[in-house]
């Protein structure tokens, strides 16, 4: 990442904060304008809708052009794989150069096009490597590919500042290590060793915002990998070994390792939540909450405390009760906060959140549509259990 790009990202972070202050009414429009002038934007950016459209059409244009060259060059036959791989390398290198020019001298950022060209560059280079690795018929094809993918993604994340590529690089590295005979151990040791460093880097002012976000992305994937490695179900089904294509027999239940997995399945979410609460670290809190839900579902899988409907209703009521208690606890603190947490919205865009909620409600709660052609025929006892959300027939 160039120093100019890092500076531009830092200024954008300040402008973003100022926009949220303006949204919350802390500053007026004139102050926002003055802040935007003090931290000027030297990049060419577009809004989210245009960004998505430009991304999609660039992907379409790039891939269609590749196809066009392939077809008119007579490379579409099944025996022209090598030539196609060479074309993919050329396309990948060309797109890498195009991305670099756009982000560098053309000063594009959040523009959609440069994100699409970077994505295609990685795709074509990875595709070419995959072709040659599979053609070489080596037994270590998947780990080599995963490592190559991890290197490509890590380089892209470092150079262009896309956290998503950092997350993909970490996932690739984990899958590659799963192929080693002590893969599961590495899935535990590597995240534990890297977590303190990554936590510090994700809050380091010396790094630009995009690299800090990349460190957070790497941390999140690594810790998710750690949980997957110690999870009871993953141990019993030998999931990591399956990923590493090393087919082991199912381990005996009830031995020391099994009990260690039981303890770790319960302990990891608790530790993540505790660390997240203590450091007010949002990624750790999110991971802690996610893994806690996974561990509770695991508990229900092994221990049938009550019928499913009781578990669901009681969990729902408990969840609502916990929220009420938490809110009351936080609001009763001095100035409506306790231990650095508050239930007040602060500088969040409430209208946007509510619109998202409504959209989510359509996706998750919309009732099943009735079948139109069944309308004239009444059979009694038909129909749907639902409307206004609940759905499912009985």
């Amino acid at each position, binding site marked *: 990442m160039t120093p100019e790009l890092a500076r531009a990202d830092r200024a954008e*972070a300040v402008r973003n904060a100022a926009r949220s202050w303006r949204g919350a009414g802390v500053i007026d429009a004139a102050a926002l304008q003055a802040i935007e002038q003090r931290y000027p934007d030297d990049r060419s950016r577009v809004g989210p*809708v245009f960004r998505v459209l430009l991304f999609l059409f*660039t992907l379409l244009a790039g891939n269609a052009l590749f196809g066009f060259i392939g077809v008119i060059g007579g490379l579409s036959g099944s025996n022209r794989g090598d030539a196609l791989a060479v074309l993919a390398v050329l396309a990948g290198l060309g797109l890498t150069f195009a991305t670099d020019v756009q982000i560098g001298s053309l000063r594009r950022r959040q523009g959609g096009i440069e994100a699409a060209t970077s994505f295609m560059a990685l795709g074509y280079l990875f595709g070419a490597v995959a072709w040659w690795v599979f053609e070489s018929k080596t037994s270590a094809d998947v780990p080599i590919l995963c490592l190559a993918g991890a290197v490509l993604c890590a380089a892209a994340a470092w150079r262009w500042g896309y956290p998503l590529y950092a997350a993909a690089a970490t996932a690739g590295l984990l899958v590659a290590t799963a192929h080693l005979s002590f893969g599961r151990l590495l899935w535990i040791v590597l995240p534990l060793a890297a977590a303190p460093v990554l936590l510090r880097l994700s*809050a380091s002012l010396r790094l630009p915002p995009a690299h800090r976000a990349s460190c957070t992305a790497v941390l999140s994937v690594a810790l998710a990998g750690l949980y997957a490695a110690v999870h009871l179900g993953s141990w019993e089904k030998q999931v990591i070994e399956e990923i590493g294509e090393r087919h082991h027999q199912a381990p005996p239940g009830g031995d020391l390792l099994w009990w260690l997995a039981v303890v770790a399945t319960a302990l990891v979410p608790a530790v993540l939540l505790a660390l997240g609460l203590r450091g007010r670290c949002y990624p750790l809190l999110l991971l802690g909450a996610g893994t806690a839900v996974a561990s509770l579902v695991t508990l229900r899988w092994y221990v049938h405390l009550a019928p499913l409907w009781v578990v669901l209703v009681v969990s729902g009521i408990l969840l609502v009760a916990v*929220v009420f208690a938490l809110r009351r606890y936080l609001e009763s603190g001095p100035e409506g906060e306790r231990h650095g947490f508050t239930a007040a919205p602060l*500088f969040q865009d409430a209208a946007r959140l509510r619109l998202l909620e409504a959209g989510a409600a*359509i996706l998750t709660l919309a009732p099943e549509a009735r079948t139109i052609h069944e309308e004239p025929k009444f059979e009694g006892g038909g129909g749907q259990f*639902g409307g*206004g959300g609940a759905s499912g027939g009985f």
Partner: protein
Amino acid sequence: MNLDAAQAIPELAESGLVPPAAAPLLLRVARGELVSVHGELRALLYSGVLLITGGAGVLVKENLDRIGPVVIAAALGLAALAALVWVARVAAPFSWREMPSPNLAFDYVLLLGVLLAAADLAYLEVKFTPLGAQWPWHLLIVALLTGFAAFRYDSRVVWSLALSTFAAWRGVSAGRMGTAVLWAHAGAVRWNAVGCGVLFAVLGVVLVRTRRKAHFEPLAVHLGWLLILGGLASGMTESGRTGLAWAAALLVVGAALAIGAYRSRHFSLFAFGVLAAYVALSRLVIDVLEAGAAEALGCFWFSGTSILVIIGLLVAQRRLKEPL
């Protein structure tokens, strides 16, 4: 946490761009010393409502014979009533304008009450069939009651349920954003999707024009256009001239939407229009190219036209200046 903003705040406060009284709070938030869990608490409440209604559904399914229909209907009705009575007690007086929620739980207790009431109505209809052959009308009744609750208590979530339940009554699954009709191959469903879409879009415009619950407009208009475009796009899967006619209709409607949205600065609707028009135009062109079996021409079409669209989008965004 926003470390760069944290570094800038003291300087901004000194120069008077940030009110000195607000600076300490802004600084704490930017440094991550004060974290808001407002959104997370709302998400947990939403999950709680989903779990409770899901549990109620499983209870009814698994214990239908053991508990008996009257007990189930009464239990669902009582639970819904309890939730709705609480909502009615704490709700602010009715207003056509946007009203802030009286408390964090209000929207979710209302949602729970509406979902349980809807489930109860559906259950009563299935078990006791009061509507007889007209049983699908229970969805319309639920849609109207849900719509009333959304207006009275000013809830966007319940408003989205009202719209999707209405669409379900017409045989359209709004949960799949109109895409399900792409595979339905049923003329009636297609026309219903388009009809529902037009109704929702017009309703949205009326809400804004009359300034009555104008904040419900985005949901109605977006869902409406998704259903219209999805319905028209489903026609393109038909073979022969019928498919081409639907493609031409989608091209005209998509282009009109894109132009209208461009003029009114509706960015997301502009995107819907551009995508729909492009898909429709490509369908028409590919139909011609397929006759000549020209693979390369197809690739050339997509690369060439995509580049033209990109240029057009770049010009359009310079004029529109969509906020970041």
